């Protein structure tokens, strides 16, 4: 090691004189800087068509370099915000975490790396597909499976196995604490769901509360916008999950089941405290509510929390409307319904049951008795189906059956009369509710299943949820989807079946309902009883004719102002199905809005 060489040893270096130089050529440095590697993390580019403006890149950015900027020229759609990320190259550290976590796969990095300027403002830009210099630079770093930072798979929900059909046991088992924590950890808190939810529930906030294991806080978040969380945690149409930003590349967060986890697992004392914490000092004002369905309950709760005295009128024996008499027990157990209604009762809402407005008490009388009246009567009638044979006595409708079954399960009524062979017309969720209810009743009565279904819509466009279809078929429903009913075949005054034809198209060129059939593909589904579940409609008999003249009713729906106020009848507010069509969460939202509207109205009246 210690040897020493000659002083002139470095002269050896001359041998490199004729070798290829290590120096990079001038043109590769100045004119056209060397192309960076394929993974290079250069300046950003963002595909605006794909980008949904969720802001997840801004949340992960460790340097706070990304801010979301509203772009006025972009439309707000369901599941998309009109914001796009803006980058500050006075902050960016080129770590590419934003690329790795991008939910829509729109944010990428280019190979471009030279940007010099005296103008400091040029280091701030809102990247689009063209990159920083508008020159369509080559793509550098992109996300792949390995660098993925999202969890795209749902925590699987446990379901009862197919033996569930022997009783009305609840099918979905619910999340355990570990599962809920894991599921809540997937949320990226973009808030797109909040915008989509009709009730604008604070979804990211309550998911964060679950993640932090603060269930009381979660309940508080729920009751800010939804007093029917037990119900919505089970049978909500979960539009939020359709909009969830994670659904762009993976599976949406199970927002509904997380809500259910909150209401099922919060200790009852904490729950009550959180619910009652909203109730304020009583104020001067009385409000009457017609109908105790979702919208009525929601309006009642929020009016009560504002301090008003609230009376709710219900024609049936138990309040709740569709939640007590509509949803089947295996989806919506009685205990959950009663928990929600019980909580609302605890806030001091007064329920007047077995009182039908229009016959027992008129709307005029309510007008005199109360400062304002909220109409939340819902779609309580089944829409009739006029085909040959539909006037037969064994043709039944969905709503009476579902109500009778709930009463039967409560023990307050006898079992509905179910035949051995039945067919259900309709392809919506309610139709499946009917079919699966019938199936359970059949097993109880006959020990075997024979339920058929027929709907205009084929499997691909079936309005019902996919899980309804899958579970229903698993339980033994025989579906003729895409086959429209032509007539109910009656022989010797007895129903023998339903004749169906293959549907070619449902709507005509003007997008009007006008189904076309292929008469060659036609058969008869054998049954002795037919259930029709092709939609519902309201019952407006309590509204007097001179009131009807003053209000506008379009296709069975009442037109109201922003907060549910009927324009020419300022004391009357309406909400729920009769305003927005049948959906529980819409009803909850309307109830909340109307409570706000009633509060505004009464405050201005008292001035």
């Amino acid at each position, binding site marked *: 090691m210690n040897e020493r060489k000659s002083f002139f040893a470095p002269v050896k270096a001359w041998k490199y004189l004729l070798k290829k130089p290590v120096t990079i050529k001038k043109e590769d440095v100045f004119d056209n800087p060397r192309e960076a590697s394929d993974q290079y993390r250069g300046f950003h580019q963002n595909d605006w068509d794909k980008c949904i403006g969720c802001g997840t890149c801004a949340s992960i950015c460790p340097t706070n370099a990304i*801010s979301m*900027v509203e*772009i006025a020229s972009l439309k707000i759609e369901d599941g998309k915000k009109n914001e796009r990320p*803006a980058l*500050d190259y*006075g902050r960016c550290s080129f770590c590419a975490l934003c690329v790795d976590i991008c939910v829509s796969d729109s944010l990428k990095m280019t190979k471009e790396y030279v*940007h010099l*300027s005296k103008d*400091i*403002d*040029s280091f*701030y*830009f*809102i*990247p*689009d597909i*063209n*990159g*920083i*210099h*508008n020159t369509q630079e080559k793509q550098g770093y992109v996300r792949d499976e390995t660098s993925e930072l999202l969890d795209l798979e749902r925590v699987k929900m446990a379901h009862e196995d197919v033996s569930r059909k022997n009783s009305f046991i609840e099918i979905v088992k619910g999340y355990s604490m570990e599962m809920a924590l894991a599921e809540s950890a997937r949320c990226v808190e973009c808030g797109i769901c909040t915008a989509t939810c009709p009730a604008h529930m604070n979804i990211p906030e309550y998911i964060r509360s679950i993640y932090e294991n603060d269930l009381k806080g979660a309940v508080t978040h729920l009751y800010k916008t939804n007093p029917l969380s037990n119900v919505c945690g089970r049978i909500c149409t979960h539009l939020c999950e359709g909009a969830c930003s994670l659904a762009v590349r993976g599976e949406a967060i199970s927002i509904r089941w997380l809500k259910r986890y909150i209401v099922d697992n919060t200790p009852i004392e904490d729950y009550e405290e959180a619910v009652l914490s909203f109730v304020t000092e009583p104020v001067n004002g009385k409000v009457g509510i017609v109908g105790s369905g979702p919208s009525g309950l929601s309006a009642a709760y929020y009016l009560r929390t504002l301090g008003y005295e609230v009376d709710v009128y219900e024609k049936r024996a138990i309040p709740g409307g569709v939640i007590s008499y509509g949803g089947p027990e295996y989806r919506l157990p009685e205990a959950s319904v009663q928990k929600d209604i019980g909580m609302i009762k605890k806030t001091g809402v007064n329920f007047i049951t077995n009182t039908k407005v229009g016959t027992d008490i008129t709307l005029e009388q309510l007008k005199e008795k109360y400062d304002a009246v909220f109409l939340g009567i819902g779609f309580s009638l089944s829409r009739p189906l006029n085909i040959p044979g539909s006037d037969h006595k064994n043709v039944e409708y969905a709503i009476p059956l579902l109500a009778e079954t709930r009463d039967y399960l409560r023990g307050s009524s006898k079992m509905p009369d179910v035949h051995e062979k039945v067919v259900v017309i309709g392809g919506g969720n309610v139709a499946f509710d009917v079919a699966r209810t019938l199936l359970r009743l059949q097993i109880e009565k006959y020990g075997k299943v024979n339920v058929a279904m027929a709907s205009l819509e084929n499997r691909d466009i079936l309005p019902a949820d996919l899980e309804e279809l899958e579970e229903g078929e698993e339980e033994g429903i025989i579906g003729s989807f895409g086959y429209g009913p032509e007539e109910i075949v009656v022989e010797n005054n007895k129903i023998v079946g339903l004749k169906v034809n293959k549907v070619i198209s449902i709507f005509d060129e003007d997008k009007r309902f006008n189904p076309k059939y292929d008469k060659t593909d036609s058969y008869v589904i054998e049954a002795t009883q037919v259930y029709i579940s092709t939609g519902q409609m309201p019952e407006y008999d309590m509204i007097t004719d001179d009131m009807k003249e003053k209000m506008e009713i379009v296709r069975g729906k009442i037109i109201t102002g922003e907060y549910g106020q009927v324009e020419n009848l300022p004391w009357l507010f309406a909400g729920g199905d009769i305003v927005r069509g049948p959906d529980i969460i819409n009803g909850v939202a309307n109830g909340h809005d109307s409570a706000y509207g009633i509060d505004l109205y009464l405050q201005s009246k008292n001035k």
Partner: protein
Amino acid sequence: MMNSMNNIMKQVDDVLNVLNKEVISNRQFAIDINKGDVHQALTYLKSIGFTQLSIITCVDLIADNKFQLIYILNNWELGLFVIVRTDIDRDNPSYVTVVNIFPGAKYYEREVHEFFGVTFEGNDSSFKPLLLEIWDDIPPLRKDFDPQVYSDRKFEKRDSDKIYRSKIGGVKL
């Protein structure tokens, strides 16, 4: 390796007054020591092969109103780390230096003083500033110090929002 660590842990347990011990990995364990026994512990550990002081640092346990002093020693022969922990009062934090055992502690203690405000009796230089110059706030690594607030107060930031509003897309070169 696990064996030699268990032996060492047993030895340490026998000789020292160990409040609590924790196995962190198969080459690392931690012991909690009373405030008064740390010097004895370090001397003993040094005598059984933990000849190198890797770091002295401090953790601000603000919820318990305590500072936890951390001494990490390295045993090169066996390839073991030991973490010696002791709690001191947070309101009036002071402790006795260990430079007489590990001379290398001098600058670590100076840094702990600078970052947490813990004074070390016997280490005169520990009161001098080390990394910071003209510091005018509470020691910066305490949990109740918010660097964002300090930075906003001292160092002006560019208002990027205004710039963003006026432009979309890249820059023309």
